[in-house]
């Protein structure tokens, strides 16, 4: 017994020691007071470096302009990025700068004091940088976005022709989309193909992301989610009508969206802008079939917003670890200034990334990529849209998204009706978040 008591005493002592150590990193907010004098090497965390060249592209382009500063990119795991980063920051072994892989976890780092104030960099950025607001809390900016994806509607022009259905013209609402999906399924079936009208991947974003961005009075944080109803009813109806692979088949057969659209199993697919580069690469390598395709704005709630279509996606930004020295902080600030510039945007557009700046010059670079559809609607889709962040910056966001994620699988698998599923989620939100 005595030994147990001794051991717990030792543990509490150790705990205090360990945990006291963690907070030390947050004390020396340097605020960028230092100056870069000699040669400096700063580190940046990225993931899957061989297939995600964007970090190295930024590092190289920056080094060319600032030869005295070298940016070394460190590799983290793509799926467990945040787990690794949280561990590293807690233990004080994190790199100088890190990418905020998704906005959902930004608040963790910001609220935990793990991001340096970069408002001075933000103040110098041009007005056309998208997504800066998402990283601004109480008028202080904590990260600079370099890419801003957006969800589009991809469509297979050959399959539309085969089914004899009119291609999207930029004025589509969700009802037009649903009608087209059913017409396509019927038309393709008549033409002897077993491809479906559309493919909606299993993620909750595919339904909820659009609803949160478009529906009247939509507010994820309110916990009042009645506005999801029409979106879910439509998704379930499409599935019941056979115009889309049902959720059960999709999850149990681990369908990938790349092969569903890439091998012409579906004529349409709502998906994020990152898929442009993937599809181009897969068509070039022969992994995807060779067919004509293009992308259109995401379908809208009604036709009032077709002039500047409302869509969603989170920005991706870079922040600075506050535990760095003044000199490294100053060098990192310079890197962030570059990250928000048009030069960086063009460098990214060249490799198929949708940068945070999409002005005419960047659009031109983007559509100069070989094999990309250059029709007017695709260009309009890329350059003109009102993109809303998927995740509001709030401490409760992740918990609420988890609840909504559960509701998504319950509804889409047909275990509960949309009405019951949403009611259950609202109940849980009220009881857990209050």
């Amino acid at each position, binding site marked *: *017994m005595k030994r147990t008591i001794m*051991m*717990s005493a*030792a*543990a*509490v002592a*150790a*705990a205090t020691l*360990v*945990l*006291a150590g*963690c*907070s030390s990193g*947050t004390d020396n907010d340097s605020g960028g007071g230092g100056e870069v004098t000699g040669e400096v090497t700063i580190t940046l965390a990225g993931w899957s470096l061989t297939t995600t060249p964007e970090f190295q592209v930024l590092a190289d382009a920056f080094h060319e302009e600032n030869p005295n500063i070298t940016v070394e990119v460190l590799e983290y795991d793509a799926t467990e990025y*945040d*787990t690794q980063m*949280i561990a590293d*920051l*807690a233990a004080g072994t994190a790199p100088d700068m890190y990418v905020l892989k998704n906005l959902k976890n930004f608040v*963790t*780092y910001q*609220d*935990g*004091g*793990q991001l340096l104030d970069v408002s001075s960099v933000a103040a110098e950025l041009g007005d056309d940088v998208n997504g800066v607001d998402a990283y601004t809390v109480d008028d202080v900016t904590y990260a600079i976005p370099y890419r801003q994806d957006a969800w589009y509607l991809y469509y297979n022009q050959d399959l539309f022709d085969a089914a004899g259905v009119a291609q999207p013209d930029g004025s589509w609402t969700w009802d037009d989309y649903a009608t087209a999906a059913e017409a396509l399924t019927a038309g393709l079936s008549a033409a002897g193909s077993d491809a479906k009208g559309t493919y909606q991947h299993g993620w909750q974003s595919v339904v909820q992301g659009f609803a949160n961005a478009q529906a009247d009075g939509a507010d994820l944080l309110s916990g009042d989610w009645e506005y999801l109803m029409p979106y879910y009813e439509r998704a379930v109806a499409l599935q019941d009508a056979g115009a889309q692979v*049902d*959720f*059960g*088949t999709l*999850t*149990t*057969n*681990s369908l990938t969206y790349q092969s569903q659209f890439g091998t012409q199993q579906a004529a349409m697919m709502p998906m994020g802008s990152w898929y442009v580069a993937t599809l181009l690469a897969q068509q070039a390598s022969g992994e995807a079939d060779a067919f004509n395709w293009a992308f259109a704005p995401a379908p809208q709630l009604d036709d009032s917003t077709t002039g500047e279509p409302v869509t969603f996606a989170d920005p991706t930004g870079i922040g600075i670890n506050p535990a760095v020295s003044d000199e490294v902080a100053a060098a990192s600030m310079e890197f962030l200034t570059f990250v928000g510039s048009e030069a960086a945007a063009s460098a990214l557009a060249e490799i198929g990334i949708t940068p945070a700046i999409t002005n005419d010059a960047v659009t031109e670079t983007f559509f100069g990529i070989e094999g990309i559809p250059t029709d007017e609607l695709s260009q309009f889709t890329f350059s003109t849209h009102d993109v809303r962040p998927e995740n509001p910056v709030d401490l409760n966001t*992740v*918990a609420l998204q*988890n*609840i909504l994620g*559960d*509701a998504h*699988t*319950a509804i*889409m*698998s*047909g*275990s*509960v009706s949309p009405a019951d*599923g949403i009611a*259950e989620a609202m109940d*849980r939100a009220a*009881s*857990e978040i209050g």
Partner: protein
Amino acid sequence: MATTVAPAPTRAPRQRPPGSRLKLRNTFIGWTFILPNFIGFAVLTLVPVLILFYLAFTSWNVFGAAEWVGLENFQDLITDRTFHTALRNTGYYALMHIPLTLAVSLGLALLLNTKLRGVAFFRTVAFFPYITSIVAIAVVWNMLFSPETGPVNQFLMALGIDNPPGWTTSTTWAMPAVALVSTWRDMGYYMLLFLAGLQAIPGELYEAARVDGANKIQRFWNVTVPSLRPTTFFVTVMLTIASFKIFDLILVMTDGGPGTATLVLSQYIYRKGFEEQQFGYASAVAIVLFVICITVTVFQFLINKRRDR
């Protein structure tokens, strides 16, 4: 835990005078045996675990100091409905998985503890599910269980069952499906432990029983079962704890869905800790899980001790 503190000196080495010097000497020698392992264990596992116990009473969010909140986390657990669901699901899973795996793995061990030709091959086969990549396991079993196109349901329909279950896409059947796959995966592992235990039984015991005229079934109950008790105890404890801690298979097969039908405690801990950064709260859930496991274990320990006498 006070009940287990007192050591049982009843079976101390005989023919030696009991005395404090001997006791001291025994303690010293005992510790030298344990120490090489214990140093590593204490520093790297025990201390972090004890820190966890401390954290359960704080609102630690991984960054910054851990603020003491007393029993607040535990009070919140009382009204946390998702926690209740996870608790219920974990219990349901354990209830299916423990007896099933125990029976299957013991059966396999008895069957493969023979001079049968090719036994090495069949043992390896039984162990294969345990070493096959968990991603492949999830992919294949999900596919087999696919409600429309899966071989399992096509077979059931061929048997004349019109409305076969939706398995991993159904809130009712997802958990039994996971428990089944989990048994399939673990059986080779526990079979191996049972095999080692069966090997420890001295052949003379069987010979003696045979001489006494005991038939196969009597020999099983009167020789195998009692001699296997330390192994059975070990397997039961490990299996119980592992069942309550089930995590990776659920994550890849259903990710807790559909809805919260297969959400289990370990996954809830991960969600609360790594996704929502409520490490204090997650630690409290971990302690509940710990208390459940340790209660069951102490219970099994006591039963085992009583039978030993």
